[in-house]
């Protein structure tokens, strides 16, 4: 994965498969402590201790279509390669919290990438629950949830040109305002 956006898109799929009705993506940048953290939290079905221990193994997956599961190991690798850390906590029927930390200034920290496109595609596909994105920098914070969008847009198709461009612009301009690190 070349960008954090791609990791987010990938990891959120795990929460969707876990039948989560609330998925929170939290990105926090701190220039003072030189820390860039990504937290993905869901209220899905969770994992047992045994499954949790195996989740970071690239040769473990709960799928039946193939024998490898690289999403989590790739993110863990990228975090550790960028002077950071990785943790995964889960409880059956409560949910899962994934935390990946990167050294903000590290040259190996993947860039955020086109998060607006990524969020748009996630909002388009994930319709069973609430997906919330938070981004915090020292300039402020930005938050957008799929419930808010649903409330404003109602039954209108997100694929409609004006709406698509509107959602993209909303995310991009707000992230510009809080000066997110690219």
């Amino acid at each position, binding site marked *: *994965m070349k960008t954090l956006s791609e990791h987010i898109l*990938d990891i959120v799929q795990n929460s969707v498969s876990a039948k989560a009705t609330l998925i929170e993506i939290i990105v926090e940048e701190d220039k003072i402590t030189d820390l860039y953290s990504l937290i993905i939290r869901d209220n899905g079905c969770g994992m047992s201790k045994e499954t949790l221990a195996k989740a970071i193994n690239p040769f473990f997956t709960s*799928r039946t279509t193939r024998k490898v599961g690289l999403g989590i190991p790739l993110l863990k690798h990228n975090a550790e390669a960028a002077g950071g850390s990785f943790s995964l906590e889960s409880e059956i029927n409560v949910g899962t919290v994934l935390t990946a930390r990167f050294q903000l200034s590290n040259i190996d920290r993947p860039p955020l990438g086109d998060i607006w496109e990524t969020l748009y595609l996630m909002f388009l596909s994930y319709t069973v629950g609430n997906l919330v994105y938070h981004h915090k920098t020292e300039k402020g914070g930005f938050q957008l949830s799929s419930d808010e969008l649903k409330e404003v847009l109602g039954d209108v*198709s997100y*694929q409609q040109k004006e709406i698509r461009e509107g959602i993209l612009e*909303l995310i991009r301009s707000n992230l510009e305002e809080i000066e997110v690190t690219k």
Partner: protein
Amino acid sequence: MTKIKSLADLRKIKEEAQSRIKLRENSTNPDQVVQVKVGMATCGIASGAKEIMKYFVEELEQEAIDAVVTQTGCMGYCYAEPTVEVKLPGKEPLVFGHVNKEKVHEIIDKYIKRGELVDGIIPVSFKTIDD
């Protein structure tokens, strides 16, 4: 384009465009429209499925085709990512492998618009996956 900074701005955009805007197709009659599912598990994303999904949304809109574009998981054809499953109304779904931007055009022009088959179909007795 005017700056869109808040949900209120977005609401305004929606109201201005309301007359021309379609309702969310999938909430009304999913079987009556073209369904495009882009494989977006780790394998798909790493091969550029995000760009392909975005491109499908833009091109289908451009061509004014009623379609629902969504993500799906890994269909087990990791070697052929990005993979795209296309289901025309009343037909069995087809899976296309190694989809790039040119292939997107080919799929839309030939298969979706005219029902002609194009190269790159993964030939199996395919069943849609649930996750």
